[in-house]
């Protein structure tokens, strides 16, 4: 546990040296959903987040997710991410997989049509304790709701030998307009098909993205998992705090 906290502090300190934007919503920062827009062309973004997973019937786990994104073309970015998890019950660090991801924004919002983007992710195992390799794809639609708030629909499919589907309805609302312009409130409802083909994985979450300087966004969230294919993960809570820095 000390090792993972130290890694987190180190990650966040290095970020302080390197324009993330609280309005531009990235996956896992801090909720699962994302909007239909890529990061800016020519920008790099380093994202890191510490998560604490609390369970009813077992000791907590701690995760450190780190991801670097690169806007290699207009409306397109590539990213590589890693999220090792420390299990305090077994005192073991699980390496998990390395995620390689490609995002493309197909269209911005034009007239009444939503913005459309998609993401394709592949996972490569890093250690023997890593999960099985996955290929996932996600279709993302973002649409203005009233004035400044937006809905974001993420429809996903994962293939790990078997195909599983999922959907997340995300919502973003800038807070403080028209007097302040640095904070966005987020909420999501998600459901995904487990490998046993039943819709057992479901969750809800709320979060905040707050601009703390011109290139840095602080985020935090609380997610509750209602159903899970893994019985001990049911009714678990996840608290996440993270930082994104562009350069």
């Amino acid at each position, binding site marked *: 546990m000390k090792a993972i906290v130290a890694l987190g502090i180190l990650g966040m300190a290095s970020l302080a040296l390197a*324009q993330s*934007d609280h*309005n531009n919503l990235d996956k896992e920062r801090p909720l699962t959903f994302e909007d239909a*827009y*890529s*990061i*800016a*062309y*020519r*920008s790099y973004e380093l994202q890191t987040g510490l998560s604490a997973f609390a369970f009813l019937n077992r000791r907590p786990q701690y995760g450190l997710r780190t991801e670097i994104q690169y*806007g290699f073309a*207009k*409306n397109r970015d590539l990213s590589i991410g890693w999220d090792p998890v420390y299990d305090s019950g077994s005192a073991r660090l699980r390496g998990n997989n390395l995620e390689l991801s490609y995002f493309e*924004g*197909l*269209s*911005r*919002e*034009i*007239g009444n049509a939503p*913005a459309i983007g998609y993401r394709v992710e592949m996972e490569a195992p890093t250690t023997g304790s890593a999960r099985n390799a996955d290929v996932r794809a996600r279709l993302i639609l973002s649409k*203005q709701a009233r*004035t*400044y708030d937006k809905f974001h629909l993420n429809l996903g499919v994962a293939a790990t030998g078997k195909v599983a589907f999922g959907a997340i309805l995300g919502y973003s609302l*800038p807070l403080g*307009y*028209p*007097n*302040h*312009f*640095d904070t966005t409130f987020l909420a999501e409802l998600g459901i995904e098909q487990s490998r046993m083909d039943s819709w057992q994985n479901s969750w809800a979450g709320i979060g905040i993205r707050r*601009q703390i*300087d*011109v*290139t840095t966004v602080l985020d935090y969230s609380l997610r509750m998992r209602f159903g899970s294919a893994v019985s001990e993960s049911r009714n678990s809570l996840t608290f996440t705090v993270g930082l994104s820095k*562009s*350069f």
Partner: protein
Amino acid sequence: MIALLGLVLSAGFGQDRLPPVPPDLPSWIRAKGMDELYYKSAPYNWSINRIPKFARDMYATGVGHSMAYEALASGREAELETTTFERINRILKNPPRLPVDEMALSPTFVRKYGYLEKVFDWAHTLHFQTIDVLAYPGWSDSRKEQELEELWSFYQSEPYALTGLPMNMEYLDSFPYSKGFRQKYPKVNGLFWGYHWLQTVNYDMLYRVPTADQAAQYEVIGERYREVELYDETRDFMPMTAELSPRFAKRFPQLANAFDNLHMLHDNVNDILSQPGLTDLQREQQIQIAIYRVLDSTHRGESEDTLRPNSLHDHRHPPSMPGMGMMVGSDEDEMYMSGMGWMNMSECGHCSVPMPEEEPWGATVTADGWTMSVRCLMCARDMASETPGRAIIRAATEDPKKLLILVSDEEGNWKPNLPNVVFLEKFGEHPDCSGWSRAFTNDSALKQYLVANPEYAGMPGLNLSAWSKLNQGKPDTYRRIDRPNPYKRGGNK
């Protein structure tokens, strides 16, 4: 088909003089991507924050632009001069501490005119990065000048780049919808021109000025911006970069022209969005045409020598000022400046003697919302003393790397950036004033000058207190250009 439909609708609107859609409209205008661009990666980025009040005022200009555009795009123009003005004004009085995502503040506008936002956003990035370069303490003046050239090339590498050629402002402001916004919405138009005043006056505040001496000037400029320029409904035409930052505009004409072309595009868009009777399609087409007119790609291969007067391809400029297009009523170097009347840009604003071609370059005076170039310190001081309120003088010294910055209070007491500054002033003929009215960084530099110029031998050096008490009055060489305001009925126009 769209063009034909537009033609039919424009006939219905009764303004068949609306410009037609050009056949070579760039394809990116119809592209669906957001195309968000990152600024040039560099150590100077966000150096604007070294002058916090300036940075916050600049960030608030983005909010002001966005809120007005959102009101116009969402059919709330009736509340523009009341509710929207008040809302914007509240932000201007309590400006944000961080830059604001303009697209997040104007979602309806961006859904309708996303291609226009790309042009605005990219040009605003150029505005900010130019400021960042000039406010960066880590580089010499020459390195900054080199970087501004590179920044210009970087800017031009995108299709949304505006032309750096001078454009004929009279032509660009001559369409059936032109001038409507400023007449119908004078308060919000005043805000727009106020933002553009700030976005153009700042470059001489920063250019070749030691970074330690930049913030003090903003005390004067910021006060003027917040108290007068934002609420000025009497200005005849939008502020021009060369009008407010003449030294910068002369050195970087491509940047000055691009900023003026951007600000004219803002005026065109305001006029189109507020023009009653246009259909949505007509608005969209006219905005696309307005963009097309000022794009770099539209004028590729052309130069300042392209002589097609009063047309889209009129790139003439006043002979002494490459960083400005021709204005209403302009004649060679003479132009009409709001608040100052007719001026000749090749001459000293105080004594009308031609500006020197060689070093020392003279000085600039910023006061009462204008900036003028003058030949010497004496002209600078006496011109500032004729003007009520605070003033800034930026003047050459014997050391090209050390600029003298004098900032006055309301009573005309000057505060210098060079603690040992010493002045030479031996009143004589104005054409020679750059020889006998000068500033030196210290006494020893003055002595060296007196040795090298025996005609001034024995002249005492004046300290700031003694120098500032002098006043030689209005020079007899001063020549007032007595022509009517071309923007008013009965003027040249």
